[in-house]
């Protein structure tokens, strides 16, 4: 019995650690990081993973050992111990310190994500309009102003410049959606009735999948999109092309 019980705990811990260790190799892990904010976020992720692993191993080891020793047949009685103030204070302080450290470590990155002061001024901007179950995007046309008649409109593919901060404004037409690009480590709910800013810097040109992360109805699972990052000149070329296309066709897809 006691062999089983202690073994179960040890095996569980081993399994957890081994499985976590193998997962990156299998690709069952954070997708390749493609934005500048990704590094600090992944670092914090790893930091917590390590801290937690330490805590986990300690607790599990003590638990398994206590079971192993305690469950062996013997005739004498356990000592009547009601507690130990020193120990209590000790581990409270220790874990408290760990938690405070972990919390403080998050603050700079959180600020980089949310502090209005960190919001890029000028640079590339675009609007995101979420609706059941599709994404639509808007870029400033020749006049360089968003929300005017000559805006460039695209659907399901958001084209952005790489290597520089971009600022998106998220709106929803119906219910709550969530703008999630795993490779960029950004996620922002798109709340109807609000225009929510979101900013990040894509490192490399490339195409990254855009996922709707907030339940938005029966099509939620299929509300897919793409973010295509181009180099600055390619991006300018693309903009120019789009506006010309608009003028020639005179297409007016206003909503």
């Amino acid at each position, binding site marked *: 019995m006691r062999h089983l019980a202690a073994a179960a705990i040890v095996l569980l811990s081993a399994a957890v650690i081994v499985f976590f260790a193998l997962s990156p190799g299998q690709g069952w892990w954070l997708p390749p990081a493609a934005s500048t904010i990704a590094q600090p976020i992944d670092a914090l992720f790893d930091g917590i993973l390590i801290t*937690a692993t330490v805590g986990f191993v300690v607790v*599990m080891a003590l*638990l398994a050992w206590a079971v192993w020793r305690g469950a062996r047949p013997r005739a004498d009685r356990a000592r009547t*111990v009601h507690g130990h103030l020193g120990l209590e204070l000790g581990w409270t302080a220790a874990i408290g310190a760990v938690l405070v450290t972990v919390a403080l470590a998050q603050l700079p990155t959180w600020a980089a994500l949310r502090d209005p002061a960190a919001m890029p001024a000028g640079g590339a901007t675009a609007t995101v309009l979420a609706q059941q179950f599709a994404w639509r995007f808007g870029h400033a046309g020749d006049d360089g102003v968003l929300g005017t008649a000559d805006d460039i409109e695209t659907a399901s593919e958001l084209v952005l410049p790489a290597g520089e901060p971009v600022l998106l404004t998220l709106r929803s037409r*119906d219910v709550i959606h969530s703008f*999630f690009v795993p490779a960029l480590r950004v996620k922002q709910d798109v*709340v109807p*009735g609000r225009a929510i800013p979101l900013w990040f810097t894509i490192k490399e040109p490339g195409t990254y999948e855009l996922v709707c992360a907030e339940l938005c109805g029966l099509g939620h699972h299929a509300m897919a999109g793409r973010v295509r990052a181009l180099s600055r000149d390619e991006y300018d070329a693309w903009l120019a092309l789009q506006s010309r296309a608009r003028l020639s066709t005179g297409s007016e897809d206003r909503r």
Partner: protein
Amino acid sequence: MSPTTHSAAGAAHQRGWLRTWVFSTDHKVVGIQYLVASASMLLFGGLLAMAMRWQLAWPWTEMPILGKLLFPATGRVISPAFYTSLFTMHGTAMVFFAILPLLTGAFGNFLIPLLVGAPDMAFPRLNAASFWILLLAMGLFLAGFFVEGGAASAGWTSYPPLATLPSAAPGSGAGQTLWLLAIVVSGVASILNALNAVVTVVKMRVPGLTWMRLPLTVWGLFVAAVLQLAALPVLTAGGVLQLADRWIGSAFYTPMGLMVNQFAPDTAGATGGVPLLWQHLFWFYSHPAVYVMVLPAMGMVSDILSVNARKPVFGYRPMVWAIAAIAGLGLIVWGHHMFTSGMGLEIGRAFMISTMMIALPSAVKTFNWVATIWGGRIRLTAAMCFALGFVALFVIGGLSGIWLAATPVDVYLHDTMLVVAHFHYIVFGGTVMAVFGALHHWFPKMTGRALSETLGRVHCFGTFVALNCVFLPMHQLGIAGMIRRTADPNVYALYQHLEPLNRFVTWSAFALGAWQLLFLVNVVWSLRSGIRVGRNPWQASTLEWEAPSPPGHGNFDRDLVVECGPYEYGDAVGTNDWRPQAKRT
């Protein structure tokens, strides 16, 4: 108070089957009624989970046997709409109609009077009423499946406007209305139940049973009840507002100028409503609710560990303070469910720090549990195995909570399967394990017969292995970015390589579900031919073991006077290795 010289079973002859088992106001009978009802809901929720797992492993494929019964309309295939109803109803059934009633209703009712030496709850009729009201709520909840548009489908969190606009989702019509009614009604039941618990603990303790002599089970149930009384009314208020949006055309949660399915919802608020308001009201309750789902479990585990380690709970007072701290902090951390909702810098900061802090009392409890069994004389009864499992699995679930509490990391992990892994570890690996343990521990008191120890241990080990196979890989799914509430992960190229994991999880889930039947077998078998037990089969010191098994109406057959704490075990407590709380007369 009628004389207590007959067991509930004996009473049957005198008061008739109906009045004993159905229309009784005896706290033990009400508790068992709660147990049966909520266990059935656990089973039901589990079956829904099986259907979800089928879909996630083999999306849009015909479901073998059940498919024909369940969805003939869609050619034996789960439709996208039905999948959204599946997890909505699964989550709701499990949280509101299985786990909460199991702990506060079943164990709360059965144990509190016995553990404080009272003949019954403070308000027996109110108590019985609360059960019947809950049953009504369950009825409303299940009715959702049979109305036009199908059951509610906006998630157990029911975020508006998806939940409030019938045009936004099929389930947001009659189904959502029934869902809201069920939640509000079950809220009334929970309030009455919590009211009873609080008053009973405060007013009906036997002489000598001071606050610092209460078993931790009572502390857990008591504090959980206080949390219910404080937080639940706020959810009710939020629910009333959602019902108003549906019934009187108000627009509390619906902003201006929406276009849903090509037409604007006819809520012509001169000023638009605030969708996030619901999220705040909902989580103000539902975060504390998750601690309501764990504090009683923690209490019961503490008792089981101590009894079976033949050693006092280590650091009783710190344990009590930790429970209080978890409850207190629990009321100010709800924002951690909304980090990606557009929350401001400072508010996010504040909620993160308070959330991190709430890990501290949980850590204290964990270490005290380890210290409790440290150097004990451990009896690996089935109950003990489950209790140990609880500790191990709670730790895993808790630690993943730290990831989620860290705002920048949560921005990535929010609404991924990692969140699902997190809370299933705590809620199934933790609470449900504790419930099974508690059932093994107190079943003798409930029925006069013990559950089969052997079967119990087999069930425990199997469940332990299986649930790790189910919920451990969910972490990887989430870390790889797979979102939750998705009916088909393979839509995204990003997730396709996760298919093997998803299939493995599903097979494990089937195994887990099937394995649970062992428990039902055990219950049925033991009810008829389990070992008959005396008053105190575990040689435990708390008061319930002074009563006959099962206790008659009125519970005790002598006046109890408490003369020591609840955990007097070991070498320094007298001739035995345990000393009863109640003075021997």
